[in-house]
C-alpha cells in the first residue's frame, strides 16, 4: 500500500525533475547570451598541466574516499 510519505516522495521527484530540467532557461536570456562569462579563463586552467595534476589528485582522493566508505561498511556489517 502506498503511504502518504511515498506520495510526497514522488511529488518531490517530479518537482526536482522539472526544476533541474528548467533551471538553465533563465540563463538563456539575450543579456546572458551576449556576453561570455569567464572567457578563456577556465579553458586555460582546465587545459593546464597544473589543473590536470589537481584533477588527478582529486580523482585519487575521491577513490580513497570510496575505499574508506567501503571498508567502514564492511567492518560495520562484519561487526553485526
Amino acid at each position, binding site marked *: 500500500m502506498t503511504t502518504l510519505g511515498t506520495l510526497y516522495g514522488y511529488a518531490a521527484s517530479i518537482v526536482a525533475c522539472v526544476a533541474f530540467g528548467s533551471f*538553465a532557461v533563465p540563463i538563456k536570456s539575450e543579456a546572458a547570451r551576449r556576453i561570455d*562569462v569567464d572567457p578563456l579563463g577556465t579553458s586555460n*586552467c582546465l587545459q593546464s598541466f597544473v589543473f590536470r595534476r589537481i584533477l588527478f589528485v582529486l580523482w585519487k*582522493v575521491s577513490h580513497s574516499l570510496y575505499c574508506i566508505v567501503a571498508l567502514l*561498511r564492511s567492518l560495520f556489517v562484519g561487526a553485526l
Partner: protein
Amino acid sequence: MIVLQTYKIGICFITSWLVLAFGVPFTFTPWGFVSGLFMVPGGTAGYFAVRNAGLAVSQGIWSSLKVLVAFGWGIFVFQEPVRSKFGTGVAVAFMMAGLAGMSYFAAPSRKQEEGNDDDDDEHDVEREDNFAMTAGEPLLSMARSMTRNDSLSTLSDAESLFTSPQPSNQEEEVVLGCLNHFQLGVLGAIIDGAYGGSVFVPMHYARSTDTQGLAFVLSFAIGCSTVVSVIWVLRFLFYVQRTQSFSEGFQSLPSFHITTIGPSAVLAGLIWSVGNVSAIFSVARLGQGVGYSIVQSQLLVAGLWGVFYYREIRGRRVVTSWFLFACVTVMGILLLSLEHVPEIA
C-alpha cells in the same frame, strides 16, 4: 563555469536556511562536505568531458551512468527494499537506454542532419548553444561559447571525431598518461556519472543523527559552498603562480557580470535550489535507488523545452525518435515506481 557554479551554489547556500522556517532544526554533519566533493568536481569533470569527447557522447554516458550508480548504491550497497531486484534492474536498463537515446537524438549533428534549412555557421553555433542550455547544464553552453572564442577549438574537434572516422592529430595526442583527448573526455564523463550518482549517498551515512532528509539540506549547502570556495582559492593561486603577482592574480579572476547575467543567474540558482531540496526529500522518502534515479529524468524536461519552446530539435524523424526514447524513459520510471516498497510508518 566556476562563475555559474558560484551563483548556483551561493543561492543554494542562502536559501537552504529557509528550511529552518519549516521547523527543521539546525544540524550539521561533515558528510555534507563529502557531498560537495562529489558534486563540484563531478560538474567540472562533466565540463572537461564535453570539451574533449563532445556533447552527445558525454551526456549520454553521464546521464545513464548516474542512474546506474544510484541504483547500485541503493539496491546493492544500502539494500533498499524493492519487490524484485531483477525487475528493478530491467526498469533501470529502460531508463538508461531512454536517457542515452534522448541524448543521441538531441545531439547537434542529428539536428543539422535533419533540419538543415539554414546552413550558415552562426546559426549552427547558436543552435548548438541552445541545445547545451536545454540539456540542463549551463556549463555545456559555457564550453560552447568558449570554443567560439578559443583558437584551439578542442570541443569542435572532439565532436568531429564522432562523425569523422579519421580523428585529428590533436585528439590522438597523448595528454595524460596513456590517454588522448577523447579518452580523457570519456573518463571525465564517467567521473561525472559516478560522482553525480553518488551526490546524496553521504546522506545515508548521516542517518544515525538528525541530519537526514530536509535537515541534510544545510549540511549539503555548507559542504558545496566550501568546495566552491576552495576551487576559487586554487584558481587564484594558479593565477598568482602564473603572473608571479598577487594583485594581477586577483585581477585575472573571472568577472561575475552582476549587472548583465546576475538576475538570470540568481533566478536559475533559485530554481536549481528548489530542485535540490526536492531531490533530497525524494531520496529521503524513496531511497537512493528509486528516488535519485527518477530525478535523473530531468533530461526529459530539458528536452521538452528544446522541442516545444526553443524548437532546437528539428526534423520529423529526429523528433519522433526523441519521443520514442522519452517514452522508454517514462516506462522505466513507471516500472521503477512499481518496484518500490513503501516504508511502513
